[in-house]
């Protein structure tokens, strides 16, 4: 491998593609070639940096400098000023990668602020399509450690249990316990499944891992397979994520080529086959038993639990189903040890969490920070506060199956336990921020519409309940609300919570109840005005 003095990273995601990242890349390469710099400076595509609305982003390493809103015509200046003379190009929007809070007086604001990245550590500093770079950056070292230190599957599970890692898909179930149940379940044939059917509105954290660092996921699944005793694994990716599917497939092929997957991995005798299954558009398939049904090639109708997948999963065999972000924590825990992981985050929820910050904020995008970070810090520091100097009104946490919080709860700490105490949920880590002009009635309508559309129709409480709730909210929103409507909404949602088959029907109660409780006056006003 040749050595370059400078690396230029071009994060490729939906936003930068639209802004013309490939055009910029072509121009950059041809200008470098014209100056015979192509052997000194390497241009790489990386995963998303989680910054949104910044146009084409160009990062210069080792200088650790970002340029934003880069146009084709800026390339010559960047080359001549920065790459040749070592001066930051003044006329262009730029920021040091993590120095925003190191500089005295600089505001601790925005997504370029320092973050603690465990799951996304490599996601924008390596070329995800080149396994050599991933290996150089520490990829597959945890897997190597397991084999060289001759850790038994039980020891691996014990380490994960000690780390206190909890599922990042929303439920927060201890990962080590899930693996132990699967390992101890009767039967020879077992499976590991990665749930990459990311469909919770407002969530795109898994996409960044899938696109930015697919090898981390492959390494983690291989470790999981070793721990639970699985010979085959599946990554179920939602059908809409074309680029994710492409990148993960390439990574699987490369890992196989390097003997990190397949037969006799690293000459240890351990075998693990991994393949992708593509979803076809169904929110419900994010529920683990619906996902398993879909993976088997059926309609994505959830199963009745128990029995749970750890004993009766894919083809009725013991199966561990883990979320992408959960798995992405595994290599770091194995490499650095459970004690290291426990020092991060909170006592009951160690580690970091990836949050997506959306809606009426200055800097929408994605960050990774410690579990237990206050909501206020996420919105006002990382997110840069409310856009256009407006006032904060509400935050919807955890996606559509989430909870509306009002101002008094802004200081809540963002982890499973603290949120639960405050009748809220962490869910997938989505934080949708609403300013003072937002109608909560209208937002609840949007959520009700979403649920009515996504109900799979298998059980009556959910199939009928979602429609009835939608109709009532629709009426209130039209200014035709009636006395008793709010009571009916709560009754319906509660009934669905008690009687629905799966979490989809059970979770509509969260947005409904929290909206009615925290924004009581707004709903009461809508109805009293209608009655006049």
């Amino acid at each position, binding site marked *: 491998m040749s050595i370059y003095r400078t690396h230029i990273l071009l994060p490729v995601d939906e936003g930068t593609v639209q802004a013309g990242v490939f055009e910029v890349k072509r121009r950059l390469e041809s200008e470098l070639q014209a100056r015979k710099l192509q052997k000194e400076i390497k241009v790489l595509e990386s995963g998303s940096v989680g910054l949104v609305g910044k146009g084409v982003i160009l990062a210069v390493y080792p200088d650790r400098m970002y340029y934003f809103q880069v146009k084709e015509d800026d390339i010559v200046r960047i080359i001549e000023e920065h790459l040749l003379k070592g001066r930051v190009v003044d006329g262009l929007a730029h920021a040091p990668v993590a120095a925003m809070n190191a500089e005295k007086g600089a505001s601790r604001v925005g997504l370029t602020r320092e973050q603690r990245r465990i799951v996304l550590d490599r996601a924008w500093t390596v070329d995800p399509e080149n396994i050599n770079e991933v290996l150089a950056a520490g990829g597959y070292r945890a897997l190597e450690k397991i084999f060289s230190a001759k850790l038994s599957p039980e020891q691996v599970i014990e380490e994960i249990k000690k780390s206190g890692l909890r599922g990042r898909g929303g439920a927060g179930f201890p990962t080590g316990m899930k693996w132990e149940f699967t390992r101890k379940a009767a039967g020879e044939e077992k499976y590991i499944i990665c749930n990459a059917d990311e469909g*919770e509105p407002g969530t795109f954290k898994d996409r960044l891992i899938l696109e930015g660092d697919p090898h981390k996921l492959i390494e983690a699944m291989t470790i999981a397979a070793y721990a639970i005793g699985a010979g085959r694994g599946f990554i179920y990716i939602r059908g809409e994520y074309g680029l994710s599917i492409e990148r993960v497939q390439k990574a699987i092929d490369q890992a196989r080529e390097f003997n990190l997957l397949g037969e006799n991995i690293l000459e240890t005798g351990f075998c693990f086959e991994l393949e992708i299954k593509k979803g076809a558009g169904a929110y419900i398939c994010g529920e683990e038993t619906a996902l398993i049904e879909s993976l088997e090639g059926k309609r994505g109708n959830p199963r009745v639990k128990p029995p749970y997948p750890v004993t009766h999963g894919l083809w009725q065999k013991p199966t561990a189903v883990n979320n992408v972000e959960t798995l992405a924590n595994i290599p770091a825990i194995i490499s650095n040890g459970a004690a290291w992981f426990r020092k991060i985050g909170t006592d009951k929820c160690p580690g970091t969490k990836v949050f997506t910050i959306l809606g009426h904020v200055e800097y929408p995008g994605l960050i990774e920070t410690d579990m237990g970070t206050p909501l206020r810090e996420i919105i006002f520091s990382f997110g840069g506060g409310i856009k256009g100097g407006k006032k904060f009104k509400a935050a919807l946490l955890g996606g559509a199956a989430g909870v509306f919080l009002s101002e008094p709860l802004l200081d809540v700490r963002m982890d499973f336990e603290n949120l639960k105490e405050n009748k809220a949920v962490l869910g997938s880590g989505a934080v949708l921020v609403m300013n003072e002009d937002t109608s909560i009635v209208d937002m609840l309508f949007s959520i009700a519409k*979403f649920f009515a559309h996504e109900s799979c129709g298998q059980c009556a409480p959910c199939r009928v309940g979602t429609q009835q709730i939608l109709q009532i909210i629709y009426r209130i929103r039209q200014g035709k609300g009636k006395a008793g409507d709010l009571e009916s909404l709560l009754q319906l949602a509660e009934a669905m919570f008690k009687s629905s088959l799966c979490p989809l029907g059970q979770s509509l109660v969260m947005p409904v109840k929290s909206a009615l409780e925290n924004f009581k006056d707004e709903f009461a006003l809508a109805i009293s005005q209608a009655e006049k």
Partner: protein
Amino acid sequence: MKREKILQKYEPSGDNLLGILHDIQDASPEHYLTDADLRAVADYLGQAYSFVYGVATFYTMYSLKPRGRYLIRVCQSPPCHLLGSTTISSELIRLLGIGFGETTADKRFTLEMSSCLGVCGVAPAMMVNDRVYGNLTPELIAEIIAGLRRGK
């Protein structure tokens, strides 16, 4: 690719059903699955036609009706709703003269609603075939549609 060739790529095992349906639909210029497709797949996998039909109609990405050259999927999930997807939807309806689930007479455009596309950072967003468009405004919509009409 011909249907037979697609089928040969896969083992006749039930868990390949979704993948097969994807591939056949992707090969169709009108982005849809015909009745003959469903029957052929059912035969190949040794499944009942009704079962395959049930699966094909469960998932939103499959269509049993012919669709236009440009499949427009507008995200209507709460983050996009908050930032104005309703305006985007009505502008599309006005410009194309069709409602959701419909195809224009010249078979150019099909308009569909979509759940979260996972690009909430650039809300409101939509997809045209495989391409994502974000930070949409009525002006931008007009531009995009005009571009597609010119066959861009």
